[in-house]
C-alpha cells in the first residue's frame, strides 16, 4: 500500500515537472521571438534609414548590426530588404554587400544543403540567387542535381542559378552539361541560352571537345537556340558525328540558326544518313531555313520508307510554301493515314483548299473536276469536316459539288449534314446529296432518302432508289417496314421506287412481298419484281412469274422468261416449254437462252417435248436452244434437224450449227448447201461464213453459182468473211452478174485483201453502185458493216487499165494536181511512186511541198525517201523536215538522217524544239547519224544553247554516238545546274563504257535531285560493273521512291549475287512501286537464281504487290515460255513452270501446258500440279496428252487430277 502511494506521488511530481518544462519552453520561445522581433524592427529601421541616407557609413552600420543583433533576425530583415529592392527594381548591391560582410552568405550556402526544413533550403537558394553570388554556383548546382532533394528546392536552385546572370559561371554550367539529368539539363540549357552570344565560345568548345556525348548534344541544341552564325560550321561538322543523337541535334540546331550555308550539308544528310530520325530532323530544318533549293530534295523525301520522314518532309515543304503543291497533293494518297492528314493540313495552311472551294463554282468543267478530285483526296485524308460549312454556301453549284465531294470522301459521320440538304431549295443540290448519301450508305439516313420517293421530280425519285440500292442490305434493315408500307402507296412511282430497294433486301418475307408485287397494276413494278425474283432465284415464285410469260408488255414477258431460266427447275422449264410455241422472237430467244442454261446433257426431256410435236415453232426453239448450248454433242441432233420437213426448222438448225465451231458442224453445213429451199441454203452459207476457214469452203464456193440470186449474194458475203487470198480468187472467178454488184463490192471489201479492196474501191467509183452498197449494208449486222468500213474507204476510180503507162502517168499527175478529193490524190501519189519518170518525181516533189492534205504529203515524202541523192529531192526533204504536220516531219527527218551533212543539219536541230515527241525522237536519231564521226561539232552546237531541254536532247544524241571525246565535257555537265542536263549527261556517260566515266557517275549518286540520282542508277547499272554494288547497297535507303524504283528496275543487269541480295531486300520495301520493280527484276535476271529467289519471296507477298507484279509480267512470261520451250536444262524448265504457276495458272495455263510435252517426267509432273487449280473444261484437252504417259507417276497424277476435277 505504501509503495503504491509513493509511486503515485512520484508520478504526480513528474507530471508537474513536465508541465513546468513545457510552460517554461513556451515562455522562452515567446521571449526569444519577441526579442527577435524587436531586433528585427530595429534592424529594419536602421536599414530604412541607411536607404534614405546613402552617405551614412555602411560598414559602421554593419558592424553595429553584427555586434548588437542576432544573425537570424538580421538575415530575415536583409531578405525582406532584398525582396523590396528587387520588386522596386532598385540596386541590390548594397544589401548583397551586407550579406557578404555579415558572413551570412556562407551561412546561406550551408543552409541550401543542410537546413532541415525544405522551406529554409529553398529560401536560402533564392537568397543566393538574389544577391547574385557567383561563388554559390557549385552549391546551387549540387542542390539542383540532388536526386533526393525536394522539387521546390531544386527549382529554387535552378531559378537562383538563372538569377546569377554572371558570365563567369558559363564554363561551370557547360561542364555540368555532361551529367545525364533529365530534370536539370533542360534548366541549365535555358540558363545558358539566356547568356546568348556570351555563351557561344564556351558552348562551341563544349561541342568541339567535351568527352561526354550528352554535353555535346546539349551544346548543339543551346547553340541552335542562341542562333549565332558562328555556330554554323561547327554544327555542320557534327552532322557526321558517330552518334545519331548528336547528328539529330546538330541538324535541328542548324535549322534554328537558319544560316543558308547549312542548306547543302543538310541536303546531304537528308539523302544519305542511315538513321531515319536524323534524315527527318534535317528535312525539318531545311524547311525552317527556308531555302527554296531544298524543295526538290524534300519532295524526294515524300517517298522515304519511314512515314515520319515523309511527315517531316511535308512540314518542311509547307514551311517553304512552294508555288507548285502537286507533291503535297500526291501525298494525300500516301499509305500512312498520318501523312495523308498532314498533307491535307499543309494544303489548307497554304490556302489551296480555299482555292479549290472557289474553283467549285468555275464555269470550266475541267477546273471543277480537278478541284473535286483534290478535295475528295483531302476529305479521305481526314479533313472532311472543313467542307461542312460549304454545304450552306450561297452558290448552289458549290453546295452540290460539296455534297459530291463528301459522298466520295466516304466519311459517314457527315451523313446527317448531307441528309439536311435533302430539303435544299435547289434540285441540283438535292440530287447531289442523294448521290452522296448513296455513296456513304449510312443506315441512319435511309428513311430520309425514302422520303424522296414522294418527290414530283422523277430524276430525284429514281436517284433516291438508286442511292438506297448502293447501301449494304444490313444498313437498310431499319426501313424494311417503311418500304413495305410504301408498296401500298397510291403512287405508281413510289411503289416502283420502294420495290427496287426491297429487291436488294434478303429474306423470305421480302420474297413474298415481291411475289405479291407481281399483281401490281403498274407494269414497271411487275417488271422490277420479276427481275428481282429471277435474280434471287425464288423457286416459290415460279408459277407467279409464269403468269407474266403471257403479259402484253413485251419487256415483261421477256424478263419473265429470263427469270424462269435463271431459277431453273422442272416447273420453270415446263412453263417455258409451254410458252415457247406461242412466244414472239425476243421471248423465244430468252426462253431458249433459259433452257440452254441447264446444259446439253440435261436437255433430253426438254428436247423430247420440243421435238416430239408437229409444232414448227417448238422445233425451231429446239434448234435455237441447241445452238445456245454451243456444245459439240448437239451437232448430230442439229444435223438431223437439217433434214426436218420445215424449212424454218432447217434454217434454224443451220444457224445453230454456225455457232458450234467443230469439224462435224462444218461437214453438216457443207451437205446442207444442196437443201431444196433457197431460204435454208442462204442460212447455211451464212453459217459457213461464221464458221470461217474451218468450214466447207468448197461447198461455199459452189453456192456462188447457186440458182438463187439471194443465195449467191449471201455466199459472196460469206466468202468475203473468210477473208483470204482464196476468197479473193473465188470472188474474182465468179461469172459477171451472178452476184449483184453491191454484194460483190461488199464481199471484196470484207476480204481485206489489198487487191480486192482496191477492186472494191474501183467498183465504188460508180455512183449507183455506191448507193446500192450503202443500202445493202444497212440490212447487214454490225460486224459486217464495221469490217467493211474498216477495210474500204469510199473513193473514185482514177486509173484505166486499158491506157498505156505514159498516158496513165499523165492522168495520175493531172489527178494529183487537180483533184479536189484527198483520197484520189493519195492514191495518185502511191501510183506515181512506182513510176520512175522525171515528171512523176517532179509531181511528187510538188505534192510533198504544197499539197494541203497531210496524208498526201506524207505519202509523197515516203516516195521521195526512196529517191534521195539528187539535190532537188534532198532539198525538198529538208524543207519537209519543218512541215507543219508531225507525221510528215518524222518521215522527212528519217529520210534526211540518211543523207544530210552537218552543214544541212539546221532543220534537224530546229526539230529538236518541236512539241511533238515523235519529231524530237526522230530528229535525235537522224542527228546521231549526221554527227556520228564529228561529235565535237555537235558538242559545239549544244554548248551554244541556253534551253536545258535542247541540251538534254543533244545529250541523248551524244549518248547514241558514244564517242570518248565527249567524256571531258560530260564530266562537267553532270554536275551542272540544270537537272534535265544532269540526267541526260549521266546516261551519256554510261554509254561510253569508260572507267573514268563510271567514277564520275559514282560521284553523281550524291546529286540532291532524285531524278538525277535515278538516272545515274540506271546508267551505272547499264555499265554492268560489279564494283558499283557497295554504293547500290546503300541506295536501298535512299529516301526517294523514284531512286529506289530505278535501282530495283536496273539491278537485274548486274550479274552477281550481291545484286540479288539487294533486290531481295528491295522486294520488302515500304513502297509498292519498289517492291513490284524488285520482283520484276528478279524474274528478269539472266541467272536462274533470280527466279529461285522470286519463288521464295512470292509465297509471303501481300495481295496488292502480287497484283501489281502480275500486271507487269507479259514480257517476262514470254521469256519464261521461251525458257520452258528451249532450255536444255531440265531444272530450268521446271523452274519456269513453277514461276509461271505462281504468276497465275489461270493466266498462263497455255504456257504451262507446253510442259506437259516436256521430255523430263519431273517437268511434266510439276506442270500437272500447276494446272490442278484450273477447271476441268479448260485442262481436260491438255491432260489428254499425258493421260497415257509412259511414266506411271505422270500417268497417275494426270488421271487423279481428271478424276478430282470430274
Amino acid at each position, binding site marked *: 500500500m505504501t509503495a503504491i502511494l509513493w509511486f503515485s506521488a512520484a508520478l504526480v511530481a513528474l507530471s508537474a515537472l513536465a508541465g513546468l518544462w513545457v510552460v517554461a519552453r513556451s515562455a522562452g520561445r515567446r521571449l526569444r521571438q519577441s526579442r527577435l522581433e524587436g531586433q528585427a524592427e530595429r534592424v529594419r529601421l536602421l536599414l530604412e534609414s541607411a536607404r534614405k541616407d546613402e552617405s551614412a557609413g555602411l560598414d559602421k552600420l554593419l558592424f553595429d548590426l553584427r555586434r548588437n543583433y542576432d544573425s537570424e533576425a538580421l538575415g530575415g530583415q536583409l531578405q525582406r530588404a532584398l525582396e523590396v529592392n528587387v520588386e522596386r527594381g532598385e540596386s541590390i548591391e548594397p544589401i548583397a554587400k551586407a550579406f557578404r560582410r555579415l558572413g551570412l552568405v556562407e551561412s546561406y550556402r550551408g543552409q541550401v544543403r543542410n537546413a532541415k526544413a525544405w522551406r529554409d533550403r529553398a529560401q536560402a537558394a533564392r537568397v543566393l540567387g538574389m544577391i547574385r553570388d557567383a561563388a554559390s554556383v557549385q552549391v546551387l548546382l549540387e542542390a539542383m542535381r540532388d536526386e533526393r532533394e525536394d522539387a521546390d528546392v531544386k527549382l529554387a536552385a535552378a531559378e537562383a542559378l538563372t538569377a546569377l546572370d554572371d558570365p563567369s559561371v558559363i564554363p561551370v554550367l557547360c561542364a555540368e552539361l555532361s551529367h545525364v539529368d533529365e530534370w536539370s539539363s533542360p534548366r541549365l540549357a535555358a540558363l545558358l541560352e539566356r547568356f546568348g552570344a556570351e555563351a557561344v565560345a564556351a558552348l562551341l568548345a563544349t561541342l568541339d571537345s567535351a568527352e561526354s556525348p550528352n554535353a555535346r548534344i546539349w551544346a548543339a541544341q543551346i547553340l541552335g537556340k542562341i542562333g549565332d552564325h558562328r555556330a554554323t560550321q561547327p554544327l555542320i561538322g557534327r552532322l557526321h558525328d558517330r552518334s545519331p543523337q548528336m547528328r539529330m541535334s546538330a541538324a535541328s540546331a542548324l535549322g534554328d540558326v537558319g544560316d543558308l550555308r547549312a542548306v547543302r550539308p543538310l541536303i546531304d544528310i537528308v539523302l544519305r544518313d542511315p538513321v531515319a530520325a536524323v534524315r527527318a530532323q534535317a528535312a525539318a530544318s531545311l524547311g525552317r531555313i527556308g531555302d527554296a533549293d531544298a524543295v526538290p530534295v524534300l519532295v524526294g523525301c515524300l517517298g522515304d520508307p519511314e512515314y515520319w520522314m515523309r511527315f517531316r518532309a511535308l512540314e518542311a515543304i509547307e514551311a517553304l510554301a512552294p508555288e507548285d503543291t502537286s507533291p503535297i497533293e500526291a501525298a494525300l494518297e500516301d499509305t500512312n493515314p498520318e501523312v495523308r492528314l498532314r498533307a491535307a493540313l499543309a494544303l489548307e495552311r497554304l490556302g489551296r483548299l480555299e482555292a479549290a472551294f472557289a474553283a467549285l463554282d468555275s464555269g470550266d468543267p475541267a477546273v471543277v473536276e480537278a478541284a473535286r478530285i483534290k478535295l475528295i483526296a483531302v476529305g479521305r485524308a481526314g479533313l472532311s469536316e472543313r467542307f461542312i460549312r460549304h454545304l450552306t454556301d450561297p452558290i448552289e453549284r458549290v453546295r452540290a459539288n460539296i455534297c459530291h465531294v463528301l459522298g466520295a470522301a466516304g466519311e459517314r459521320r457527315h451523313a446527317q449534314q448531307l441528309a439536311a440538304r435533302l430539303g435544299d431549295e435547289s434540285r441540283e443540290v438535292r440530287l447531289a446529296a442523294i448521290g452522296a448519301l448513296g455513296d456513304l450508305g449510312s443506315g441512319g439516313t435511309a428513311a430520309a432518302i425514302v422520303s424522296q420517293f414522294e418527290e414530283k421530280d422523277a430524276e430525284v425519285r429514281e436517284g433516291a432508289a438508286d442511292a438506297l440500292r448502293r447501301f449494304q442490305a444490313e444498313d437498310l434493315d431499319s426501313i424494311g417496314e417503311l418500304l413495305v408500307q410504301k408498296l401500298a402507296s397510291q403512287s405508281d412511282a413510289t411503289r416502283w421506287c420502294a420495290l427496287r430497294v426491297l429487291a436488294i433486301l434478303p429474306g423470305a418475307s421480302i420474297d413474298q412481298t415481291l411475289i405479291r408485287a407481281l399483281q401490281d397494276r403498274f407494269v414497271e413494278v411487275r417488271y422490277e419484281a420479276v427481275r428481282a425474283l429471277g435474280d434471287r432465284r425464288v423457286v416459290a415464285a415460279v408459277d407467279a412469274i409464269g403468269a407474266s410469260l403471257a403479259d402484253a408488255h413485251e419487256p415483261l414477258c421477256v424478263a419473265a422468261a429470263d427469270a424462269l431460266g435463271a431459277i431453273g427447275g422442272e416447273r420453270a422449264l415446263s412453263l417455258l416449254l409451254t410458252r415457247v410455241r406461242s412466244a414472239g422472237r425476243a421471248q423465244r430467244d430468252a426462253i431458249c437462252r433459259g433452257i440452254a442454261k441447264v446444259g446439253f446433257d440435261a436437255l433430253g426431256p426438254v428436247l423430247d417435248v420440243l421435238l416430239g410435236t408437229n409444232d414448227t415453232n417448238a422445233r425451231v426453239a429446239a434448234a435455237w436452244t441447241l445452238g445456245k448450248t454451243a456444245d459439240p454433242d448437239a451437232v448430230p441432233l442439229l444435223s438431223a434437224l437439217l433434214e426436218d420437213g420445215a424449212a424454218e426448222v432447217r434454217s434454224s438448225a443451220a444457224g445453230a450449227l454456225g455457232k458450234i465451231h467443230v469439224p462435224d458442224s462444218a461437214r453438216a453445213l457443207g451437205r446442207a448447201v444442196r437443201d431444196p429451199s433457197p431460204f435454208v441454203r442462204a442460212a447455211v452459207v451464212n453459217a459457213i461464213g461464221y464458221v470461217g476457214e474451218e468450214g466447207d469452203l468448197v461447198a461455199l464456193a459452189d453456192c456462188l453459182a447457186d440458182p438463187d440470186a439471194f443465195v449467191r449474194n449471201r455466199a459472196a458475203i460469206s466468202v468475203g468473211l473468210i477473208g483470204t487470198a482464196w476468197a479473193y480468187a473465188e470472188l474474182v472467178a465468179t461469172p459477171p452478174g451472178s452476184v449483184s454488184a453491191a454484194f460483190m463490192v461488199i464481199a471484196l471489201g470484207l476480204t481485206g485483201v489489198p487487191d480486192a479492196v482496191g477492186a472494191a474501191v474501183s467498183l465504188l467509183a460508180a455512183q449507183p453502185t455506191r448507193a446500192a452498197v450503202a443500202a445493202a449494208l444497212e440490212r447487214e449486222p454490225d460486224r459486217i458493216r464495221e469490217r467493211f468500213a474498216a477495210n474500204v474507204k469510199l473513193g473514185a476510180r482514177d486509173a484505166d487499165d486499158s491506157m498505156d503507162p505514159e498516158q496513165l502517168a499523165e492522168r495520175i499527175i493531172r489527178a494529183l494536181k487537180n483533184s479536189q478529193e484527198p483520197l484520189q490524190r493519195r492514191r495518185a501519189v502511191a501510183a506515181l511512186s512506182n513510176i520512175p519518170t522525171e515528171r512523176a518525181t517532179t509531181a511528187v516533189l510538188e505534192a510533198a511541198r504544197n499539197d494541203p492534205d497531210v496524208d498526201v504529203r506524207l505519202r509523197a515524202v515516203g516516195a521521195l525517201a526512196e529517191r534521195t541523192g539528187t539535190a532537188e529531192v534532198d532539198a525538198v526533204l529538208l524543207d519537209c523536215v519543218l512541215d507543219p504536220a508531225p507525221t510528215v516531219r518524222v518521215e522527212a527527218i528519217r529520210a534526211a538522217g540518211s543523207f544530210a551533212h552537218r552543214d544541212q543539219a539546221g532543220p534537224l536541230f530546229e526539230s529538236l524544239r518541236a512539241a511533238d515527241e515523235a519529231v524530237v525522237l526522230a530528229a535525235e536519231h537522224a542527228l546521231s547519224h549526221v554527227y556520228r564521226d564529228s561529235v*565535237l*561539232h555537235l*558538242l*559545239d*552546237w549544244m*554548248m*551554244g*544553247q*541556253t534551253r536545258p531541254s535542247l541540251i538534254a536532247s543533244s545529250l541523248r544524241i551524244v549518248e547514241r554516238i558514244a564517242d570518248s571525246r565527249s567524256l*571531258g*565535257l560530260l564530266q*562537267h*555537265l553532270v*554536275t*551542272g*545546274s540544270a537537272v534535265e542536263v544532269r540526267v541526260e549527261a549521266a546516261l551519256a556517260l554510261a554509254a561510253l563504257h569508260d572507267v573514268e566515266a563510271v567514277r564520275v557517275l559514282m560521284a553523281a549518286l550524291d546529286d540532291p535531285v532524285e531524278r538525277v540520282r535515278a538516272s545515274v542508277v540506271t546508267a551505272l547499272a547499264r555499265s554492268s560493273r560489279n564494283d558499283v554494288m557497295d554504293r547500290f547497297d546503300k541506295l536501298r535507303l535512299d529516301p526517294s521512291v523514284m531512286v529506289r524504283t530505278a535501282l530495283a528496275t536496273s539491278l537485274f543487269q548486274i550479274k552477281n549475287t550481291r545484286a540479288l541480295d539487294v533486290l531481295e531486300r528491295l522486294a520488302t520495301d515500304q513502297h509498292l512501286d519498289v517492291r513490284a520493280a524488285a520482283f520484276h527484276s528478279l524474274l528478269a535476271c539472266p541467272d536462274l537464281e533470280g527466279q529461285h529467289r522470286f519463288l521464295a519471296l512470292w509465297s509471303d507477298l501481300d495481295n496488292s504487290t502480287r497484283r501489281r507484279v502480275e500486271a507487269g509480267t507479259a514480257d517476262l512470261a514470254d521469256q519464261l515460255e521461251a525458257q520452258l520451250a528451249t532450255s536444255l536444262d531440265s531444272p530450268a524448265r521446271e523452274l519456269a513452270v513453277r514461276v509461271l504457276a505462281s504468276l497465275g495458272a489461270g493466266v498462263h495455263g497455255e504456257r504451262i501446258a507446253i510442259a506437259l510435252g516436256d521430255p523430263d517426267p519431273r517437268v511434266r509432273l510439276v506442270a500437272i500440279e500447276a494446272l490442278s487449280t484450273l477447271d476441268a473444261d479448260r485442262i481436260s484437252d491438255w491432260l489428254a496428252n499425258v493421260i497415257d504417259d509412259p511414266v506411271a507417276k505422270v500417268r497417275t497424277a494426270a488421271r487423279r487430277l481428271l478424276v478430282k476435277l470430274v
Partner: protein
Amino acid sequence: MSSSTKTVLVVDDDKDVVEVVSARLRTVGFRVETALDGTGALTAIERGRPSVMVIDIVLPDLNGFQVCRAVREKWSAEDLPIVIQSGKSEAADRYWAEQVGANAFLPKPCDLRELITTIESLLDIGK
C-alpha cells in the same frame, strides 16, 4: 607595242553591248570592227584578220563555240587570240571554251577594264 595598231573584232547579237564595248575599246586606242552573228564574224575575219576577237557564245546562227572552232582551223591561238564572253558561265562552258581554242573566258556582264586588261595581255601590250 601600241594598241592603236591593233584591231579588235567584237561579236555580239546585242547591239547595245557591241556599242558599249566598242566605244570603250576605242577610248584606249584600239580599232574596232563588229559583227552581230557568227557568220558575220567569219566574213569579217575573211576580209582581214583582226588582232583579237571578242565573241559571245549565244548568237543567232553559228554560236561562239562554232565560230571559234572554225577560226582555229585556220588561225592559231597566237595568230588570232579569242576572248569568249558569255552569260553562260558554268564550269562546262569554261571547259568547252578552252577545248575549242579560246584564249580567255570572261563572264557577262563583263567588267570592261578586265576585258581591256585581258586583250592587252593577249596582245602583249604594255609588257
